[in-house]
């Protein structure tokens, strides 16, 4: 088995290749996810379109207060970028907590989102930050909020032949704090049993003005625990209220039994780690 490898330097060329070869083509950037599926024999494309030479897809920039990360920026670039760190330190940490340095030097931010693995770190954090991807196809360009991008395990709402060009993280309201934590009971480079990404902003009287809680690795997509958010919004975030919200996050989780724990255990860990994440945000 083999495939023809194409490495266009223009985005239009890449889109044309994907349109021409249809189901027989697969787009890659760092190709870390692709190579795993390919070596397992689960993907058998005749054409692979490499995107790393398309310069317009790279780079990290500030766009009027929003953070824009190009699709082919690597995780390593994102974790070390002063722009990312200034925008949201927890986002930099989420990128830094993916797998190992070797993987992070190769794997790209856009590829990670297109792969739609619910156990990955950046999707949960970016969803908590209300990010959206810019997607382009021969038909034009559109913005897809992350809540609409992830449909199922390894499944996105991208149309065939459509590519992510960048992810856009809106400016955070002043005073917003963010956290990313994950539970790794096995090894440091393993997938998480559960991860929690959260943002929280308090008003001057100390009550919660805004909050977002997202669970990773405990469902077919990252899950926004909206009932937990509702329990906190407008309330004083004392220990009891946070415990109540964390219990609601447990109910929002939809995990399966696997080597990283039974479904019941993962639900309980979703509660524990949500409580920890929220406490860190009001400490």
């Amino acid at each position, binding site marked *: 088995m083999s495939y023809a490898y194409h490495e266009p330097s223009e985005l239009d060329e890449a889109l044309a290749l994907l349109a021409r070869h249809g*189901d027989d083509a*697969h787009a890659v950037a760092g190709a870390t996810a692709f190579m795993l599926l390919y070596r397992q*024999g*689960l993907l058998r494309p005749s054409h692979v379109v490499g995107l790393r030479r398309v310069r317009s897809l790279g780079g990290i920039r500030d766009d009027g207060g929003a953070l824009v990360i190009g699709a082919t920026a690597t995780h390593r670039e994102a974790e070390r970028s002063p722009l990312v760190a200034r925008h949201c330190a927890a986002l930099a940490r989420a990128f830094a907590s993916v797998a190992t340095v070797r993987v992070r030097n190769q794997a790209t931010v856009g590829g990670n989102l297109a792969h*739609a693995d619910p156990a990955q770190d950046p999707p949960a954090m970016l969803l908590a930050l209300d990010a959206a991807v810019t997607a382009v196809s021969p038909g034009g360009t559109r913005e897809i909020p992350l809540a609409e991008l992830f449909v199922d*395990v*390894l499944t996105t709402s991208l149309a065939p032949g459509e590519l992510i060009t960048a992810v856009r993280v809106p400016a955070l309201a002043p005073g917003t704090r963010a956290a990313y934590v994950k539970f790794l009971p096995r090894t440091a480079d393993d997938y998480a049993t559960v991860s929690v990404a959260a943002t929280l902003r308090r008003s001057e009287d100390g009550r919660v003005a805004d909050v977002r809680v997202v669970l990773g690795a405990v469902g077919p997509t990252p899950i926004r625990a909206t009932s937990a958010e509702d329990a906190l919004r407008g309330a004083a975030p004392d220990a009891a209220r946070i415990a109540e919200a964390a219990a609601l996050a447990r109910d929002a989780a939809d995990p*399966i039994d*696997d080597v990283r724990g039974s479904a019941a255990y993962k639900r309980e860990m979703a509660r524990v780690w949500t409580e920890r994440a929220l406490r860190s945000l009001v400490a």
Partner: protein
Amino acid sequence: MKLAHSSTVPVPVERVWTVVMDVPRAAACVPGVSGVSGAGEDRFRGDLAVQVGPVRLSFSGEVAIVARDDAAHRATLRADAKEARLGGSVHASVEIALARAGEGCALRIESDLQVAGRIGELGQPLIQRKADQLLREFGACLARTAA
């Protein structure tokens, strides 16, 4: 791998039973099924296309009704299919049971699935989620077809 699915259909049990036992008609309710034709008494051939994320599978195989009890509304089906794109096979034993539930009908499908070959690399969690999804859509479509 064992899967269980239950749902309630707001249609009398006899009507649902007629559709379920009309295999080509019932098979049209499974998303991705095509080309169903008879292959002898209580045997049918057909194809099934399934997509799991970026992985596309295309099955080709046979379904046989191995036991049926029209009075009790229970049947046992046996499905054997080969996957041509990646290589592999699926063998399934499926128990279908219908029961009266008020004005409607309770549908219960219990499957025991054996997955062999490369498609097994997808892993049980992914296969299970996909199979659950197919069964859910089957149940919903059955309600529309029998209504």
